[in-house]
């Protein structure tokens, strides 16, 4: 038996290209006659457009065209609603989607007003300064609570009180639970998430070949198939005429799955109109306004508890900032609602949110996709409960865990995939126990902390739990094919932004078709190579596409065995596939290479039995009935300087359950990266908007991404509860690292600074030295 590829820390297939600078990213595409685009963007958050004069810009040498909304004619239209609201009764949803170029009104700083096409990006940027825009500034809607008051300015004229949506979900009877509760704790929480800031910004190259009737679009998108479908529809082409290629993409993290960004809608149109290829590469400054991010929520939450710390019920009412438009529906706040429940038994739950339009860039999912906000609320409520009830923080969590024999566990409320939130499998105590053991929880609290405190040091420990719904539908597909040269190709519709799909999918296929991982070529992100697929998001790539690969590879294996059995005239059970060869067990020398078999399966002449398919290939799809739930516990020891409020993470532990593990090296990388983003979110990154909706820190000098000195070394351990929802038993892992870091920091810093003694509570994220100073000196 060969060693199984699945589960092995196999080195990545894609690395040598990336390491030698030979991998194609969108900005590497060079086409003859290419024009370069630059967008004029509003520098005011809210205004009526009186006029846009492009005459001088058009006359500048090197400028080929300048377009505004008026030039788009009938092509101009608000984008489609990407995610409709889930079927929750009583939901209010006011759809207002982004437009290709602003017409009549601008609704956030950075909204595009005009586009310049020129011989170089340098000239195009020069021409932007030539464009004269006359704007009538309006009051900016920035503060969430003020936004929903009836007399405030309206982001959309016909949307009263800027209410984008209102959703209420409940389970059981919270009011009754509260009435009999021994203790009710209520707090207000602020949670702000930030800009994903991949090192590669967005970019598009479009090329229209009028003679072939073919549009090719290179785009840093996480959803090439749906982009293709939408563009075809908008441009009056059939899907077969459009090819979208997402080549190597330098980090996605969510905002690159937002579709029909203004640039994606305007530039293919311009390429067809001018009959010239066009390139647009977003610069870093633009990225802060032109690409979506996540932002803030304000929660008024309360928890009803029994004297021994058991949760009787939770009520949460929150406001969610959706930005100027809401094309992505309610995914983010629904995730907040659902993920708040965590790994705990919450028999009664009442959650209501109002999504609010503001004059800020659009909010769409960014790694964690709203889960962070919910996890912050529940973990902080439990910490406060632990303190008030005199129960250890880890213990109060343990007392509320869903027991291992209660799965599948139905939380009843509706999740982002429109199905009731049912946890497929899980076993939470072992995760907590392992985390406690690895961080040295008891040893720290009983010995280390008192010792260090006596030496004048301010050290604290934190522990936080979460459950993450992953691997949701609708579906993905894969085509596996043995080629004549013996290599196996695997094509799938999702794209890649660094997750290692070229390797993990190859590992899955390798075990089925008996070929070395290095001899499997995975193709992703090219709509001409695979027609169908939803995209890379919600920690679903490995689960959904991975299982599709498995299904297709299984069928190919059957075809191989069947054909080989005919070839050797033996029974199928007598065959084994190993190292790219099919051989008869026990008879050395009686073997045939897969490539030869593939040739045999594709004869140039002759007759075949009816129903025979050519080649050794298969296309299969996988769509889970609902998402698989991963879970984990993070623990951290931190030291805080009580005068400067700077901190250092002394130890960081992650114990993670994502079901069966495909590649532990790749998985560790995903967790490290997620935690790093979580640390950024907790203590370094914050989008500072002023009262006029201006972003004050739109540069990497002032929007602080953690470096190698801010991210600690992490220790990772795993437990495994396989998912019963897919044959491979896997659950998603892409977002896990980022989710519980906020409450972890709040808890550990409170402990380090002994804030309980001064009754100071940390109920907000992000924190920072400045903010800790303000909170501890009670200056707001």
């Amino acid at each position, binding site marked *: 038996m060969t060693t199984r590829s699945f589960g092995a820390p196999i080195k990545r297939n894609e690395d040598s290209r990336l390491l030698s600078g030979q991998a194609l990213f969108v900005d590497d595409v060079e086409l003859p006659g290419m024009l370069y685009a630059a967008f004029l963007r509003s520098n005011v958050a809210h205004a009526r457009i009186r006029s846009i004069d492009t005459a001088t810009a058009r006359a500048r040498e090197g400028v080929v065209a300048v377009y505004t909304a008026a030039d788009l004619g009938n092509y101009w239209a608000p984008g489609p609603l990407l995610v409709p609201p889930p079927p929750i009764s009583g939901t209010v949803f006011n759809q207002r989607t982004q437009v290709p170029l602003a017409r009549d009104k601008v609704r956030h700083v950075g909204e595009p007003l005009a586009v310049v096409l020129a011989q170089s*990006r*340098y000239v195009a*940027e*020069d021409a932007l300064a030539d464009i004269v825009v006359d704007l009538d500034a309006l009051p900016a809607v920035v503060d969430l609570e003020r936004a929903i008051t009836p007399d405030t300015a309206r982001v959309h004229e016909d949307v009263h009180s800027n209410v984008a949506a209102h959703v209420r979900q409940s389970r059981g009877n919270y009011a009754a639970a509260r009435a009999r509760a021994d203790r009710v704790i209520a707090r207000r929480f602020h949670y702000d998430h930030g800009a994903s800031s991949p090192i590669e910004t967005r970019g598009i190259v479009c090329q229209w070949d009028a003679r072939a009737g073919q549009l090719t679009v290179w785009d840093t998108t996480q959803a090439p198939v749906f982009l293709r479908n939408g563009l075809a529809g908008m441009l009056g082409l059939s899907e077969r005429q459009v090819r979208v290629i997402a080549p190597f993409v330098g980090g996605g993290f969510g905002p690159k799955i937002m579709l029909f960004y203004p640039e994606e809608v305007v530039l293919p149109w311009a390429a067809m109109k001018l009959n010239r290829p066009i390139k647009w590469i977003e*610069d*870093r*400054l633009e990225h802060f306004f032109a690409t979506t991010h996540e932002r803030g929520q304000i929660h008024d939450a309360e928890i009803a508890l029994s004297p021994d710390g058991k949760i009787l019920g939770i009520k949460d009412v929150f406001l969610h900032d959706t930005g100027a438009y809401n094309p992505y529906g309610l995914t983010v706040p629904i995730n907040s609602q659902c993920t708040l429940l965590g790994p705990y038994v919450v028999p009664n739950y009442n959650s209501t949110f109002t999504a609010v339009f503001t004059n800020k860039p659009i909010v769409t999912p960014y790694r964690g996709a709203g889960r962070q906000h919910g996890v912050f609320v529940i973990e902080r409520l439990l910490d406060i409960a632990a303190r008030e009830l005199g129960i250890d923080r880890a213990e109060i969590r343990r007392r509320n865990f869903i027991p291992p024999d209660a799965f599948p566990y139905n939380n009843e409320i509706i999740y982002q995939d429109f199905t009731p939130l049912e946890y497929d499998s899980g076993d939470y105590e072992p995760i907590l126990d392992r985390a406690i053991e690895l961080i040295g929880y008891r040893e720290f609290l009983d010995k280390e902390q008192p010792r260090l405190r006596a030496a004048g040091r301010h050290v604290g420990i934190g522990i936080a739990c979460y459950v993450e719904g992953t691997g949701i539908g609708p579906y993905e597909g894969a085509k596996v094919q043995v080629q004549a040269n013996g290599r196996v190709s695997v094509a799938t519709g999702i794209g890649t932004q660094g997750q290692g799909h070229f390797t993990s999918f190859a590992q899955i296929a390798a075990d089925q078709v008996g070929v070395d991982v290095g001899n499997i070529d995975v193709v992703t992100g090219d709509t001409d190579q695979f027609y169908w697929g939803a995209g890379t998001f919600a920690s679903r790539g490995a689960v959904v596409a991975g299982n599709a690969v498995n299904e297709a590879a299984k069928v190919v294996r059957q075809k191989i065995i069947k054909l080989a059995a005919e070839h050797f005239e033996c029974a199928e059970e007598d065959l084994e596939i190993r190292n790219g060869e099919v051989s008869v067990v026990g008879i050395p020398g009686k073997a045939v290479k897969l490539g030869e078999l593939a040739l045999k399966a594709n004869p140039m002449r002759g007759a075949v039995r009816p129903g025979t398919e050519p080649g050794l290939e298969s296309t299969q799809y996988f769509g889970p009935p609902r998402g698989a739930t991963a879970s984990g516990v993070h623990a951290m020891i931190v030291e805080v300087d009580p*005068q*400067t409020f*700077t901190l250092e993470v002394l130890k960081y532990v992650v114990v993670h359950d994502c079901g069966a593990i495909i590649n532990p090296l790749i998985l560790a990388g995903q967790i490290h990266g997620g935690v790093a983003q979580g640390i950024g979110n907790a203590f*370094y990154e*914050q989008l*500072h908007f002023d009262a006029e909706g201006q972003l*004050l*820190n739109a*540069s990497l*000098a*002032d929007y*602080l991404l*953690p*470096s190698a*000195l*801010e991210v600690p070394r992490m220790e990772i351990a795993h437990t495994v509860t396989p998912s019963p929802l897919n044959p491979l038993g896997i659950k998603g892992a892409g977002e896990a690292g980022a989710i519980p870091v906020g409450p972890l920091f709040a808890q550990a810093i409170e402990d380090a600074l002994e804030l309980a003694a001064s009754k100071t509570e940390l109920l907000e994220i992000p924190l*920072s*030295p*400045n903010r800790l*100073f*303000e909170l501890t*000196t009670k*200056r707001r």
Partner: protein
Amino acid sequence: MKPPPFRYIAARTLEQALALKAEYGDDGRFLAGGQSLVPTLNFRLTQPAVLIDINPLDGCGGRLGAEPDKVRLGALTRYRSIERDAAMARDFPLIEEALPHIAHPQIRNRGTIGGNLAHADPASEMPAIVVALGGRVRAQSRRADRWIDAAEFFVGALTTALEPDEMLTEVELPVATPNSGSCFMEVARRRGDFALIGVACIVQIDERGRCAGARIALCSAGDTPIHADDAATSLIGEALSVAQIDQAADLVQRAIDPGGNVHASKEFQRHLAGVLTKRALATANERAQRVQ
């Protein structure tokens, strides 16, 4: 974020550089390391008509001349070479301590001391250090050749005493005296970021361990580096005690005028100035005592 159009001229000699600056005045900017200037062009915050590249100038970098109590550095001396110069570390422990906080290695590989000082960013470390050391800079033009004390050189945020036709060509720094100790400290959000507050101090002691002199300068504490003269003078006379240091820190907090920014409120900056002054003075004093 492409730079706007400009005329690029590589100056081959100092005379040529000065002639060009005389011709273009404020429309012409010197391109030295470019680590501060080029970002402002890429953001289109500045749009100079002419960039005069002075990197090709010979003899404008490194140590110039040798005197026992002073070091003269050419304006084009890159931080990289200062980092690797053991003599600089010995003569200027204050600079050696500050270097890891100045941006990142790649920036220090190109950035020059002259360019850094001429840029006069209030949050930059070196201007404060040069003020603490009591150094001076040489400003040359076609019509004049003068020395400007560091205390007079920094006039406002991003503004120096240089005339439109002048070029900063040298930096002269007094060497650390044997009976002194120095300390540089800053608080920044990440290593290499601009300081929220930075303190550079020097304590000189006499043969009985009493403070004979002190210098305290801060960055990010106002529009220019702040030399806390009153605070420094208050330390002279006795061996430094905790009470005296606390009092000096108090005076420093009163001497500065921080503007606040997205990362730190004025109050927090003022608070940090007090904290760092106490710590830096205590350390500088300890180091001075140890030398004895």
